[in-house]
């Protein structure tokens, strides 16, 4: 009995101590950016630079643009949304969730990406992909989920343009976002995939993958748009502005993003 009481007391004390020692959820004050997965490496670098230049911190969350749209509609506390597809921004604007209709920040491109010593050649015209489908070299092919990942939708369009969609559909593995698709594409469980050019250029992918650009005319343009969510703090606004500075643009261009001429 006393053993039990003692254990309960010790346990409660430990839990209380432990809880008080933890950082509380004051995190609300830091502005939070929800960014499309293709921006993963580029925006991390821009945010580092932003912090050095201005002293302002930023919380970064990466995922698929479609999911972010749903989450913001449900009231997720994101202050700035960088979508890979302008339509998601427009939908949020129409729902009255954003300050305005936002601004285009980049034009994206897609590439076919394969592991360096894989069965598939990185061929932007997707000719080898077609051949691999016929001769059985292709078991699995990765794209982002076209339902909510813009790069996945463009990947689907490129496959349709090449006339491969019907034959490849049964072999597709769908990434929840384009970063996951890239990971599938070169993890060895798939022979390759269609992913964002900006990810292919990231240092952590460079040694693990070969890639080639898919013609721009094969898919709808990837007009990427960002917007401030209503109630965004000044620091989020500052980052929004910072993205048009030469320092930020240099980084974006280095990661393959073409700058829009608006």
């Amino acid at each position, binding site marked *: *009995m006393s*053993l*039990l009481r003692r254990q309960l007391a010790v346990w409660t004390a430990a*839990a209380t101590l*432990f*809880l008080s020692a*933890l*950082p509380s*959820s004051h*995190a*609300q004050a*830091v502005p*939070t950016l929800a960014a499309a*997965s293709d921006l*993963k*490496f580029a925006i991390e670098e821009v945010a580092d630079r932003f912090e050095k230049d201005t002293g302002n911190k930023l*919380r*970064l*969350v*990466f*995922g698929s643009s479609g999911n972010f749209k749903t*989450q913001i*509609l*449900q*009231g*997720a*506390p*994101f202050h700035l949304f960088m979508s890979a597809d302008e339509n998601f921004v427009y939908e949020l604007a129409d729902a009255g969730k954003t300050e305005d209709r936002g601004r285009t920040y980049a034009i994206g491109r897609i590439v076919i990406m394969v592991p360096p010593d894989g069965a598939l050649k990185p061929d932007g015209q997707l000719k080898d992909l077609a051949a691999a489908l016929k001769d059985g070299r292709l078991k699995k092919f990765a794209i982002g989920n076209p339902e909510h990942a813009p790069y996945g939708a463009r990947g689907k369009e490129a496959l349709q343009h090449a006339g491969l969609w019907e034959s490849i559909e049964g072999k597709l593995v769908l990434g929840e*976002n384009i*970063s*996951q698709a*890239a*990971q599938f594409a070169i993890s060895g469980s798939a022979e390759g995939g269609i992913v964002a050019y900006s990810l292919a250029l990231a240092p*952590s*992918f460079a040694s*693990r993958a070969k890639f080639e650009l898919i013609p721009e005319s094969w898919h709808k343009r990837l007009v990427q748009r960002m917007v401030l969510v209503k109630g965004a703090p000044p620091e989020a606004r500052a980052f929004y502005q910072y993205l048009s500075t030469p320092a930020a643009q240099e980084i974006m261009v280095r990661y393959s993003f073409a700058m829009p001429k608006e």
Partner: protein
Amino acid sequence: MDWQALFLSLKLAAVTLLVLLPSGLWLGRWLAYTRVAGKSWIEALVVLPLVLPPTVLGYYLLVSMGGASPIGAWVQQTFGVRLTFNFLGLLIASVIFNIPFLVQPVQRAFEAIPRQLGEAAAVSGLSAWQTFWRVELPLAWPGVLSACVLTFVHTLGEFGVVLMVGGSIPGETKTIAISIYDRVQSFDLTGANQMALLLLLFSLGAVAASFFASARLAVRR
């Protein structure tokens, strides 16, 4: 190693347990003794989070607690707090998700106590509360302890529900499981390995320790 995510997960696990333990103890004990009509339905409801895909549960929670839902909107207007995409949202989801992990072992533990003991305690003049503290709980303690460990460890690994109602916000809702997922996606396999290994060792250690403690307690009584 994403320490922030690890601490968040530990905090979530601890608070989940603190919230769930009193009500779970009561519910488990009640289920062990009651002969109420429709008991099977209540038991089924308790087990439901165990068999339901976490994303399905997460989806329902998101829809029912989100700012667009009547409940979510009411709570936000009345108390000024949001029920999703923050720690509170994770906690609510986590408590619901862990009900079977706590209640089931507790129920089994109380079921294993011979009924005559309770009657003997009553004859000896102990109140129901005294019987609970002095007779039942010490006997059920090994089961209660493993229920607590299961709940704690299970919360650390929770993924689907957290992903749906959390939004992966660093320091707020980005738990260790989500962080591992993120690291894999950005090809930081070293980071993913470290965290996965830590989680594996911790889970194994905690479960082994609870078995050891249960065996010791069983011997002692």
